[in-house]
């Protein structure tokens, strides 16, 4: 579904990533780890087509991103759910409308989907917060809301960047559980995290591969995790 082939990326001062190859197959679960600044977020942004590789090729849903128009990229992004570290929401819209936003963008009748939005919010434990505005939510609630929005279009791939970065252990377990549930539905999931305990906890529930970014290169992490 998403393939990076010998990809390099730099922000102008040397390659942050170089020679990175990765393939996300349907139903796969990957953890992406590495120290801060190693390029985890950059790698996820390459996968979501928010960045274009300096060299190498990105293929998304079997199409070379370099050959895709801006509209094609936008349409392809609807099949990729992204959970950001800083949970980007429109603060002037209530939570339910934020969650429904991808439906509005895709031209669906958001009003007709209201029931589904309610179920989705209940699934992430925010059924009682539908009318709340994002700034009124706690860090954990925002992370779960971001996950709800990421899956509202039933995407094929979930990209989660430090989804448990701002929450306590109990909440991170709850989020992990939700990601595992999505993976069991056949979604490809990749989670960037530096939380090794989370990875260890996940491995008890799902067959996940752990990749480590080191010196700009991507390697398969061993049993030391």
């Amino acid at each position: 579904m998403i393939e990076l082939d010998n990809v390099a990326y730099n922000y102008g001062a040397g390659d942050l990533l170089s020679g990175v190859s990765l393939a996300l197959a349907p139903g796969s679960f990957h953890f992406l780890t590495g120290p801060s600044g190693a390029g985890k977020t950059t790698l996820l942004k390459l996968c979501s087509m928010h960045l274009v590789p300096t060299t190498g090729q990105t293929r998304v849903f079997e199409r070379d991103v370099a050959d895709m128009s801006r509209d094609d990229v936008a349409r392809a992004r609807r099949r990729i759910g992204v959970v950001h570290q800083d949970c980007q929401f429109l603060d002037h819209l209530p939570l339910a409308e934020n969650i429904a936003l991808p439906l509005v963008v895709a031209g669906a009748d958001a009003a007709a989907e209201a029931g589904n939005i309610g179920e989705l919010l209940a699934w992430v434990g925010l059924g009682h917060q539908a009318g709340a505005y994002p700034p009124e939510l706690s860090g954990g609630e925002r992370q779960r809301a971001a996950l709800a929005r990421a899956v509202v279009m039933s995407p094929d791939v979930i990209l989660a960047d430090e989804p448990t970065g701002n929450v306590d252990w109990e909440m991170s377990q709850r989020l992990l559980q939700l990601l595992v549930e999505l993976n069991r539905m056949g979604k490809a999931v990749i989670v960037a995290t530096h939380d090794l305990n989370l990875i260890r906890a996940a491995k008890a529930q799902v067959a996940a591969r752990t990749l480590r970014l080191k010196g700009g290169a991507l390697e398969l992490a061993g049993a030391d995790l």
Partner: protein
Amino acid sequence: MSVLTRLTDMLDGLGDGGDRIVPPTGFTARLTLFTSAAMAFLAVFALALSLSAGRLADRWEDALARTATVRISAAPEQIEAQVARTLEVLAQTTGVVSARRQTDEERRALLAPWFGPDLPLETLPVPELIEVVETAEGFDAEGLRLRLAAEVPGAVLDDHTRWRRPLVQAADRLRLLGLFSIALIGATTAAMIALAAQASLSANRRVIEVLRLIGARDVFIARAFVRRFTRRAMIGAAGGVLLGMGAVALLPGMDDAGGFLTGLGFRGAGWLWPLVLPPLAGLVAFAATRFAALRTLKDLS
């Protein structure tokens, strides 16, 4: 909170789901509303100027095109004979419908603006005037002029062409100037709204990032801004047009003494013309915002 702020917030609340994705506040909302209102107000006056100039040009064209004047200056003992001879010549001229000597009252009225109403014409060497009405085809002015010169030495034919043409040209140009002003006002409105839209897009960069994250196409994002700016421009222009029409209605009415200036305004169905301005402002805002939004979104990638 200012009245303008409350008004823009209220207007933005009228939008449907599509444009609610743009936060409802910001100086660009007030700027667009104010600019549209001010420009529409000015456009009403430009329109009034253009229509009035058009009426004036038509009037001069129609009223003066088929008339001429013969002026007779002669010694008092010869004046009656020359007037009579002139009337005979005119009666024989092809293309003349009628010829009539102006009365003392009419000549006095012509001079009244300069000398007052009680001018003693008999004590002044004021020429006699014969008013000539032509057929639609008109007469041979040059031929008539030569015949009068030969038979009535004190008569001079004035067919109005010499001074009518520059007046009609001036009025026509004034009409064009009015239309050009409206075009200029439209272009200025477009530029201001495009700038406001660009500022709004830059200020809402985070909103755009969120929308792109969830797969919004540039057209979708642009549409949200376009709707909002178009609505603000139309409503602002409607307010400006109402104020402008009120101001035009309060201008002094047309009278003979005031001439063109007091005739500035709308008449009859002409009052409907300003109502075209709000939709036109909406159209201008739509095009300007769409162009600015799509260009800015491309630059923001």
